[in-house]
């Protein structure tokens, strides 16, 4: 057994749809060490949220294993699962739709504590709610407010407080700042970072925005149509992207700096269908390096050493 805190092996999730099997997540492998962050990046529909929900067991995998502290959580008994669920939490993109509109801030944050019967007395529970509000920077005066009375940044703080309530170890952050304005984004990113330093949380940080994840994670996995196409330590990925898709993604980010305008790789076409994908490289339709072979063969993963791996048939030529 490896000594990684989290190890995911050949994780798959297929959804049955009228058109056939939708390969939302198709054989993903990664590890995360304790207290570290993995960034999961890719365009909408590439399977990021599905991966996150599989990690929290909100969804059952079609295939594969998820080891958490050496234990395969896909094989837990229901009783073990209750314990596991406390250790792992998720923060969603849209705090509005993940909060109950009829619950006040107090009740939203108290809910997980009540469900898991963490405290015997009301006073203890109240203390914890106020402590959590302080941790996430929510002023006491909002304790009786309803979600619709608050702005997006404060709602996201409630979402974070709820996730922290049960003192988790591992938190999936699914686009936690994508719906927020830039000045508020920075506040929330700093908060998540501070909490990690304070409590040693392990994060999976899901985003479509590479610049957000850059200063946040140790390692980045780029996904395309359900598959990992490239994985590397963060510095390596930015300095030396090797997969044609990663290269295009990096070059497409508009940088707010006039002195650093770069050559842009423009992709043709758009993401193809994830339903019954063909035996080919899933990026072939948009890749300027694609050859006949790329349309006949599913590329294997090439390990380039130093934790850098790439799924491309022509990795040694381009």
């Amino acid at each position: 057994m490896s000594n990684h805190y989290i190890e995911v092996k050949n994780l798959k999730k297929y959804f049955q749809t009228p058109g056939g099997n939708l390969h939302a997540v198709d054989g993903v492998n990664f590890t995360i060490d304790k207290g570290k962050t993995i960034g999961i990046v890719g365009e909408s529909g590439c399977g990021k949220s599905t991966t996150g929900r599989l990690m929290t067991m909100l969804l059952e995998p079609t295939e594969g294993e998820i080891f958490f502290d050496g234990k395969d959580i896909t094989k837990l008994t229901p009783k073990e699962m209750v314990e596991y669920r406390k250790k792992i939490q998720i923060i969603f993109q849209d705090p509005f739709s993940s909060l109950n509109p009829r619950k006040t801030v107090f009740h939203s944050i108290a809910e997980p504590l009540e469900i898991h019967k963490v405290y015997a007395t009301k006073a203890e529970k109240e203390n914890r709610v106020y402590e959590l509000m302080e941790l996430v920077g929510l002023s006491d005066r909002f304790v009786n407010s309803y979600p619709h009375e608050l702005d997006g940044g404060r709602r996201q703080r409630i979402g974070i407080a709820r996730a922290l309530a049960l003192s988790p170890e591992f938190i999936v952050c699914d686009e936690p700042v994508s719906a927020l304005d830039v000045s508020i984004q920075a506040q929330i990113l700093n908060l998540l970072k501070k909490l990690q330093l304070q409590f040693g949380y392990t994060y999976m940080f899901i985003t479509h925005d590479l610049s957000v994840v850059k200063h946040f994670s140790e390692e980045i996995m780029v996904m395309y149509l359900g598959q990992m196409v490239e994985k590397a330590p963060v510095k390596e990925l930015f300095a030396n992207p090797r997969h044609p898709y990663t290269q295009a993604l990096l070059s497409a980010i508009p940088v707010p700096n006039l002195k650093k305008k770069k050559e842009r790789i423009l992709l043709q076409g758009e993401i193809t269908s994830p339903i019954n994908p063909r035996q080919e490289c899933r990026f072939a339709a948009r890749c300027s390096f694609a050859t006949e072979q790329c349309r006949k063969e599913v590329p294997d993963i090439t390990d380039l050493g130093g934790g850098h791996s790439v799924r491309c048939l022509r990795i040694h030529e381009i």
Partner: protein
Amino acid sequence: MQKKLLEIKDLTIKFHTDDGVVEAVNKVSLTVHEGETLGIVGETGAGKTTTALGIMGLVDCPPGRIEGGKIMLDDRDILQLDEDEFRKLRGKEISMIFQDPMTALNPVFTVVDQIAEVIANHQQLGEKEAEQKAIEMLELVRIPAERAYEYPHQFSGGMKQRVVIAIALACNPRLLIADEPTTALDVTIQAQVLELMKDLKTRSKTSMILITHDLGVVSEICDQVAIMYAGEIVESGSLEDIFENPLHPYTNGLFGSIPDIDKEVEFLSPIEGLVPDPSDLPKGCKFHPRCKYAQHLCSVEEPVFQEYSPGHYAKCFVYEGKLPAKEVKKYE
């Protein structure tokens, strides 16, 4: 200097709602020259869309009301136009693209029909000719002719937005207003749409107003930039002025908030606090509750929007020499 196409002076728009008066746009002044692209940057609620709707004559009245100012297109104040004249102006001289392409598309017509209809309405052309022109427009936005007879739902988000751009450009408007046209798109698709807009800009010389919250997008295609906060323009200037020498504390705060892909930082430098409620704006400088440089003066008196170097304006007491700070620290 090119000719002025649009000049907005002291535009003020309020919404009179049951919960109070929303001061959405407060004495906004902006200029767009021919062939130029102006970026309006600001966070949610800053008043960007309301400003654009003001130019289009599309502010919801009631509850909205234009309470002051002028919008000069050439030498005409378009705020004096009646509804009929405004309708003629829209599409022909000014068009607008919205963030959600479906607001402009009709799900029951093919894309070619929708563009042809706009063309037929504005340029006395026959059905066949309008259709031919519509197909040319689609090709211009890089949608192959063989997909012209499909319906909007058969198109991806990026393609729908390109159809909307084709519709907006169909009548060769002199001014195109694009309100967050790429915000809902993935970055690689955003790059395609931005490239297309850049290309159109150089080819057709259409003037544009690009509304966005993304300074990266601004740096790609704008010539002039206006920074909007709480219904006001707090700084404006050329692209170089704003990016190389930002003056206002809010502008600097925005730059500090963006995770920069080319830099190593552990923590970002966000602007503390929140955007004020436009139905309850602070007195004095509207940014003072969040400003690191604020002094007592800022909470009682309003700074003046002034020119500091040719074409570079800001609204802040630091630059009026009324505060101890001599300048605002540039973001790292």
